[in-house]
C-alpha cells in the first residue's frame, strides 16, 4: 500500500534524529548548551510520529497495514536496482515504537547522566545518529538499504563505546566491536549477493515472494549467511566477544544500544527473513543451536562477573540468545522472539539505567563487590531495579514472564530437549540476577571511603520509573491488549501445536527452576558476607571471568596470525618485491660500474676492441653466410 496521510512522513521518522545528529556534530562546541535538548526533542518527535502512525495503522485492516514509501532509485545498474524506499508494516512498527520510545527515555536520562561531560553534544549527536540508523534498519524495504542502517548502528555503537576515547581500553573496545561486527557484515553482504544472483533483486518483496522457487541449498546458504550477520550484531556465539568490552561506553549507551535495540537487530533480521528460514530447515536449526549456546554462555559469564555492567551484558547475550533461539523455531517462535525482544528492550534498559544510576552514586565504580546495602540510599533505583529483576527472571506477572514463558512453551512444542535447556537457562538467570541484587542492594556496605552513595536526580529517575512500569506491565499489555500474535501474524506468520505438557505444568516447572536459581544465588551472596576481593573460584568461574576465553580464541586464531602475516608480508614486500625493483636497479648500476672499467683510457686498448669488433663482424658475416 503506498504511503498516504501520516505515513507519507515515514522518511521524517529517520530524518528528524538525523537532522539532530547533523546539527550537533557539525555545530561544534557552541551547541553544548542547547544541543542535548535538541537531541531529545528530535527523538521525542520521532516517537510522537511513531505513535501517530501506530494509531493510523490500527485503523486499517490487517492486510492493509503494510505501507511503502519510495523516495528515489538509489543504486542501480543494468539488472540491479535498490531503492531508497521504506516499508512500514506491523513488524517495523513495533520496532519503531521500541526504538523511539526507549530511545527518548534514554535521551532524557542522559541529560542528567552526561550533564558534566564537556563533549555532551557529541554524545547526543551520536545517540541521534544511532536512532536514525536503527530506524533506517527497520524501515528499509530492501536488504541493501537495511545494510546501511545495519552498519550505521554499528558506527554509532563504535562511536559511543569509544566515547571516552581518552581511555585506551574504551578505544580498543570500540575498535573490537566494529571489526567483529564487520565479520557479521560480510555475512550480510554475501547474503545480499546470493539473493541478487538468485532472485535478481534485493528488495524484501521480490525475495520473499520468490523464495519458494529457489532451491533449498541456496536458501540454506542465505539463511546461514544472515545468521552470521545476526551473530555479529547480536553478539551471538561465535562473534560474542565484543559485547562485554562494549560496556566501556557510557551506561545509557549500554542501555539503548547494547541491550534494548541494536543488539536485537539480528533477531529482526532473522524474523524479517522468515520466508527464507521457513524453507531452510538446516539454517533454522543452526539458528536454534547458536541461540542455545549463547543462552548458556551469556548466563555463565553473567554469573561470574563482578562488574555490574558486564554481568548485565552477559545477561543481555543470554536473553538475545533466547530471542534468536525462538526465531529459529520458525512460525511458532517468530512472534515470541519479537515479543521477548520488546519486553527485554524495556526491562533491560531499565536494569542498565538502574545500574547507571547506582554507578552515578558510586563515583562510577562498577565493581559490585564494592557495593552493598544500597537499597536504603537509592530507593527509587532499588525499586525500579527490582521491577527489572523480576521481569528478567520471568516471575509472573512481570513482563518477562509472559514472553519467556511463551518461548519455553514454543521450545517444548519443537522438542523437550531444547525446552529443558531453555528452562535451565532461565534457572541460571535467576541465579545471576539474584547475585547482582544481593551484592548491590543487600548485605553490608563495602564502599570505598570517599564514596557517598546518593540517589540520582529526577531527570534520571523518571525514565527509570517509566521503564519500571513498562517492565511490570508491558508483557500483559502486549499479550492481552495488543494481541501481539495477531498483530504480527500477517508479517511473520504464526502457528502453534499443542505440547505434551500442559502450559500450567510447564509454568510450574519453569518457576521452580528459576526459584532454585534464586535460592542458590541468595544463599551464596545474600546470606553470606561478600568478600571485597574475589575468591579465585572454580574453573568455570575463572573461565567465565575471562569471557569463556572468547578473547583468547580470537587472539590465537585470528588476531595473532593476522599480525604475523602482516609482518611477514611487510617483510616480503620490502625485501622481495621492492627488493627486486631496487635489486634490478642495483644490478644495472653494478653493471655500469664494471663496464665503465673497460674504458681504460688507453688508446691502444680502444684500438684492440675496434680490431676485435672488426674481426668478429667479419667472422660473423662469414659464418652467417656459410651456415
Amino acid at each position, binding site marked *: 500500500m503506498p504511503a498516504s496521510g501520516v505515513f507519507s512522513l515515514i522518511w521524517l521518522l529517520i530524518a528528524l534524529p538525523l537532522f539532530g545528529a547533523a546539527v550537533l*556534530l557539525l555545530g*561544534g562546541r557552541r551547541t553544548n548548551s542547547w544541543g542535548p535538548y535538541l537531541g531529545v526533542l528530535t527523538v521525542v518527535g520521532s516517537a510522537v510520529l511513531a505513535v501517530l502512525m501506530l494509531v493510523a495503522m490500527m485503523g486499517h485492516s490487517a492486510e492493509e497495514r503494510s505501507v511503502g514509501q519510495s523516495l*528515489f*532509485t*538509489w*543504486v*542501480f*545498474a*543494468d*539488472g*540491479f536496482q535498490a531503492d531508497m524506499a521504506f516499508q512500514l508494516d506491523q513488524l517495523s512498527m513495533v520496532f519503531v515504537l521500541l526504538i523511539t520510545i526507549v530511545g527518548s527515555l534514554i535521551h532524557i536520562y542522559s541529560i542528567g547522566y552526561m550533564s558534566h561531560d564537556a563533549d555532551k553534544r*557529541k554524545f547526543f549527536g551520536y545517540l541521534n545518529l544511532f536512532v536514525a540508523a536503527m530506524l533506517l534498519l527497520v524501515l528499509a524495504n530492501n536488504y541493501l538499504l537495511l*545494510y*546501511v542502517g545495519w*552498519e*550505521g548502528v554499528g*558506527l554509532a555503537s*563504535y*562511536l559511543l563505546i569509544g566515547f571516552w*576515547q*581518552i*581511555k*585506551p581500553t*574504551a*578505544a*580498543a573496545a*570500540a*575498535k573490537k566491536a*566494529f*571489526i567483529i561486527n*564487520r*565479520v557479521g*557484515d*560480510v555475512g550480510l*553482504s*554475501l547474503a*545480499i*549477493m*546470493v539473493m*541478487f*544472483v*538468485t*532472485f*535478481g*533483486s534485493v528488495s524484501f518483496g521480490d525475495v520473499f515472494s*520468490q523464495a519458494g*522457487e*529457489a532451491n533449498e541449498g541456496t536458501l540454506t546458504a542465505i539463511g546461514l549467511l544472515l545468521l552470521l550477520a545476526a551473530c555479529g550484531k547480536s553478539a551471538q556465539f561465535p562473534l560474542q566477544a565484543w559485547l562485554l568490552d562494549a560496556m566501556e561506553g557510557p551506561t545509557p549507551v549500554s542501555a539503548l544500544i547494547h541491550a534494548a535495540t541494536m543488539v536485537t537487530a539480528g533477531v529482526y533480521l532473522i524474523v524479517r527473513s522468515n520466508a527464507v528460514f521457513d524453507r531452510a530447515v538446516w539454517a533454522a536449526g543452526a539458528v536454534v543451536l547458536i541461540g542455545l549456546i549463547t543462552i548458556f554462555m551469556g548466563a555463565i559469564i553473567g554469573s561470574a562477573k563482578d562488574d555490574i555492567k558486564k554481568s548485565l551484558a552477559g545477561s543481555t547475550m543470554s536473553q538475545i540468545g533466547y530471542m534468536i533461539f525462538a526465531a529459529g523455531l520458525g512460525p511458532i517462535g517468530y512472534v515470541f522472539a519479537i515479543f521477548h525482544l520488546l519486553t527485554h528492550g524495556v526491562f533491560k534498559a531499565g536494569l542498565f539505567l538502574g545500574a547507571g544510576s547506582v554507578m552515578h552514586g558510586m563515583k562510577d565504580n562498577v565493581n559490585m563487590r564494592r557495593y552493598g546495602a544500597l537499597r536504603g540510599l537509592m530507593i527509587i533505583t532499588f525499586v525500579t531495579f527490582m521491577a527489572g529483576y523480576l521481569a528478567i527472571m520471568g516471575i509472573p506477572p512481570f513482563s518477562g514472564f509472559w514472553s519467556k514463558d511463551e518461548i519455553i512453551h514454543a521450545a517444548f512444542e519443537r522438542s523437550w530437549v531444547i525446552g529443558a535447556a531453555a528452562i535451565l537457562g532461565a534457572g541460571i538467570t535467576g541465579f545471576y540476577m539474584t547475585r547482582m541484587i544481593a551484592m548491590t542492594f543487600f548485605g553490608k556496605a563495602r564502599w570505598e571511603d570517599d564514596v557517598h552513595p546518593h540517589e540520582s536526580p529526577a531527570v534520571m529517575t523518571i525514565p527509570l520509573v517509566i521503564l519500571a512500569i513498562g517492565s511490570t506491565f508491558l508483557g500483559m499489555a502486549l499479550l492481552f491488549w495488543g494481541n501481539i500474535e495477531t498483530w504480527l501474524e500477517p508479517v511473520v506468520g504464526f502457528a502453534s501445536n499443542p505440547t505434551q505438557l500442559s502450559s500450567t505444568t510447564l509454568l510450574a516447572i519453569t518457576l521452580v527452576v528459576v526459584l532454585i536459581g534464586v535460592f542458590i544465588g541468595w544463599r551464596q551472596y545474600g546470606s553470606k558476607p561478600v568478600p571485597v576481593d574475589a575468591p579465585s573460584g572454580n574453573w568455570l568461574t575463572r573461565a567465565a571471568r575471562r569471557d569463556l576465553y572468547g578473547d583468547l580464541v580470537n587472539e590465537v586464531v585470528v588476531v595473532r596470525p*593476522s*599480525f604475523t*602475516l*602482516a*609482518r611477514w*608480508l*611487510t617483510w616480503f*614486500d620490502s625485501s622481495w*618485491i*621492492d627488493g627486486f*625493483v631496487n635489486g634490478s*636497479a642495483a644490478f644495472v648500476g653494478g653493471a655500469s660500474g664494471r663496464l665503465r672499467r673497460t674504458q681504460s683510457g688507453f688508446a691502444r686498448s680502444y684500438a684492440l676492441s675496434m680490431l676485435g669488433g672488426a674481426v668478429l663482424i667479419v667472422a660473423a658475416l662469414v659464418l652467417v653466410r656459410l651456415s
Partner: protein
Amino acid sequence: MTPWLTILALVPLMGSVLVVLLPKSRPTLAKQLALAISLVTLALTVVMALQFNGASSEPFQFVESYPWIPAFGISYSVGVDGIGLVLIALATTLVPIVVIAGWRDVDATSGGSVKGYFALILAMETLMIGVFAATDVFMFFVLFEVILIPVYFMIGRYGGPQRSYAAVKFLLYGLLGGLFMLTSMIGLYVVSAQVTGQGTFDYLSLVGMEMDPTAEKLLFLGFFFAFAIKAPLWPFHTWLPDAASASKPGTAVLLIGVLDKIGTFGMIRYCLPIFPAASEFYAPVVIGMALVGIFYGAYVALNQNDMKRLFAYSSMSHFGFIALGIFVFTTIGQSGSVVYMIAHGLSTAALFLTAGFLMQRANGSSLISDFGGVNKAAPVLAGFFMFAALSSLALPGLVSFVGEFMVLLGTFQRYLFVGGIATLGIVITAAYVLRLYQKSMTGPLAPKLVGMKDLGGREVIALMPIVVLTLLLGLFPAPILNVVNPAVDRVMTTIGATDPSPTIASEGSGK
C-alpha cells in the same frame, strides 16, 4: 558547437603559464590566481557536465577532432563518455581543494618556489583533463607519459626527505610501463595499417579491429603492464608507498586520487574494448592479481607505522577492488569500479589532507607512533579524520560503499568464490583503518602534539566539499550512475560480454 574539452584543458594551462610569469615576490597572488583558475575550471566542468546527455547513443560527446600528426594517422581528438566525464569532474573538483589545502604547504623560506608548486598543479590539471578526454590512443599515451613530469617535480622538489629517491623511482617505474605501452601502441598502429591499409590511432577505429589472437595478447600485455603500474596493481606497486610518503599531501591527493585512476581508466577504456579476446584470456590472471592485491595491501597496511605509507598500501588494496570489478565483465562490476574510482579519489583526498594537517602540527612527522589523543585536543580534525577513515572502509551510506558493493556484487555474479573471498577484505580494511584511528586519535595526548591547534577555517573549507560529496553521492549516486551506466553498457556490448541472469529468472524463462 563549443569546444568544451579544449577550453577546459586550456584554462588551467594558461593559468599555469600566468602563475609562472608572476613575480617571485608575490607568492600570495600566485596562490590566489591558481585558486581562481581552478575554480573557473570547476565551474566550466559543471556547466559542461550539465550539457552532457546521458541517454545519447553517441559513444562520445563534446567531440573535437583535428589532424595533429597525419604522417602517423595521429589526430588531436577529444570526447568524453560518462566514465571520462566523471573522472574529469573528479580531477577538477580535487584541484581547487588541493590548492586551498596546500595554501601554506610551500613557502619561500623552505627553499621551494611557491608559484612553481601551484603552476605545476595547474599544469597537471590540464594533463589530467586531457588524458581522460583523449580519444586518440597516441594522444592518450602522450599525456599519460607527460603527466609523469609535473608529478616528478612536485615530489622531487617539494617532497620530504626521501623525495629524490621516490621521485626517480616513480618516474622510472612509470616510464618503463609507458615504454612497454609505447611498444604495444606502435604494434597496434602497425596492425591497423595492415588491416585497414591506413595506420591509425583513432580509438573508435581501433575498437573492434580484427587482430591475430597471438598479436592481440602481446599487445594487450603492453597496455596492461603500463596500466597495472599506474594503478598500481600487485606486484607493481612498490613505487607508490615511496612516492606517497615523500609527497606533500596535495601532491599525494592528485597522484593517488586522480592520476592513478588513469591506470584503471585505461583498463576499461583501452584494454577491454580494443583487446576483448585477450582481456578475456588474461582475466583470470588479472583477477588473481587484484585479489592478491586486495589482501596484500590491506595486510601490509595493518603493519605500517607511517601514515602515508599506510594510505598507499590501502590504496593498493582499493585498486585491487577496482581492477577486479573491471575484469569480471559484468555491468554492475564495471559501473561499480567507476564509482569506486570516484569514491577512492574523494576518500584519498580526505585521508591525505587531514593527515597532512595533522602532520603539520607534529613538525611533519607522519609516524603513527608520534600521534595519539588528537581527538581530545583537536576534535574537528579528529572528526574529519574519522570521516575519512570511514569513507576509506566503505561505510554504507558513503559513496565508497556504493562502489565497493557494486564491485563485489558484480564479481560475485560472475565468480562466486572470488566474490566471496574478496568480500572478506572489508574486515581487514576495517581493522587497519580503525587501528590507525585508535593509535593516532585516541588515548592520552602525545607529547609531540601538546599545544596543537584544531583545524582552522581554511582547512575546514578544503575538507568540507569532500565530506559533502562523499555523503551526497553515497545517498544519491544517480548523478554518477546515470552517465556511467550507459558508458559501461557500451563497453560490455563492445567486448560482447553479457551479464549472468538471476537463477530464478533464467529457470523461469527456461520453462
